[in-house]
């Protein structure tokens, strides 16, 4: 686990990030809504059926 955090601790130490996300929510800066655009899923193809089954 990457170190302990508390909600109040984050609220106190991450004001810039919080304001950035709020700006995104409020449409002030759409790109700040979430900095990365991600692929929802990634997968391996199905294994083939066994011809002998």
């Amino acid at each position, binding site marked *: *686990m*990457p*170190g*302990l*955090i*508390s*909600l*109040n*601790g*984050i*609220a106190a130490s*991450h004001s810039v*990030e*919080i304001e950035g*996300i*709020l700006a*995104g*929510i*409020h*449409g002030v800066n*759409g790109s700040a*809504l*979430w*900095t*990365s*655009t*991600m*692929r*929802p*899923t*990634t*997968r*391996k*193809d*199905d*294994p*083939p*059926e*066994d*011809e002998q*089954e």
Partner: protein
Amino acid sequence: MNPSQLLWTDTSCYRYRLEKSAAALVAVQRSLATENLQFAEALEFRGSYEFLSRSHPNVFTRVWNDPVAYYWVRRAVHFLAGCRGAPLGTIEQAYCKDVGANGSVEALRIHLNEFKRFALASALISGENFTFATPFETSLPLSLPGTGVVIAGDGRAAIRGVTDGRIETSAQGWLAPPGSADSSSAGPFLEICPTVEVDGFALSLNPRLFNLAGLGFGGGWTMLPLEFQKQHSKLAAEALAAVARFQPSTFALFAQTVRAVALKPPREGGFGSISSSELPGAFVCSVPCDVYELAATFIHEFHHNRLFYLEEQGSFFEPLEEDAIEGEIHYSPWRDTPRPLHGLLHALYVYIPVLRFWGALVRQQVLAGMQLAYAHDQLARIPFQLRIGVNQLRRHAKFTSYGSTLFEQLAIETSDAESEARSLGVSLHAPAISLRANGVLRPVLAPDGARPLSIGETLRNHLESRDLRGECTREKRLLDRTLSDTSAR
């Protein structure tokens, strides 16, 4: 930090994403406070939020490090923005469809209600009492974040809260603990997910965690009895032990970040194994499976997860006319259907450590028979696929500075992978071996079943049938020359 450290060993990306998702939770609370939203779910969210804000860091971190926390907070941010007119993304649209919500406001109300699961989990872990102002009505099964506990059953339940470490429902009173006589009833009851333990790391096997609106792949397999997980837990433990033994650096990071894995039958769900950028620290695998192939799948899916963490810190691609994330137009040697550039980059990243894993197994002479033949297949096949991946991305992608740094390092390591394969003496003329749906390794036969195909032939057949835009004619010519070189047989 050099690019290699960034790709393979840096751990700050895990902390960054955890802190960012907690910051987003604070932003959600502040946004709700200023929006003057008068519906009950917004007011009740505040009660749960304040309970979590009072929880000990040990408790909050355990709850908020659960993969579902990121999923929840990201949807909340997008629905809040949607209430102000922002367009909904693919997952949010699927979410609305799954829960029958007509737009962002209704979806937000439903989603805020689901936040109660975190308060419930926090109360369960801390031993503190917590009662909801109105019962938490939710669909079952419900995985409680950070606990390995599931409220199981069919349909819906109304949960009043936690008192003295016990969960109380409106209809049934206290929920029966796992294994008690009452827990066999159809109504809500508690389940404890099986775990596998390797070198002090306990991995939860939790298919219920994937039962999330909008996720898109959490189907009927999430409802299979947990007995299925137990049946295959020995195999999962052996596979994880193989990762620990033959790729200890990956195991160390895996133990820090992976919170839950679900095992499913190969024919369920329409996929082999899967990770989601929205569920950091969780993935799904199919079993039965060869133990070393399952270990390779653990390495593969772990690295998809890790690349999602790295992506949280910055975009890999500059905007292009084509959509690098969703534009499924490029030939991929790993897939039968065209892929976006983002998918190609992911494949390039995850197959480098997979190749190293097979190399370690061969070098340490732990394999024989069909397993050794399969390792040789992978060691010959993957470098050729990696080279196509590098070439495809070089031809078509426009990277950001951050993306370019990572990509160029991957290109260097692809050359190293080719050298590794050469040093192990593997050949594209060797028989192709594949894993079948029943988990057994078998030679790949020609369509008429008359003869086994070589690794090179299967790669060529794939190029021939799947490179519909002729993007890789140069690689195909190179492969043809290699295959016609009889001296290399």
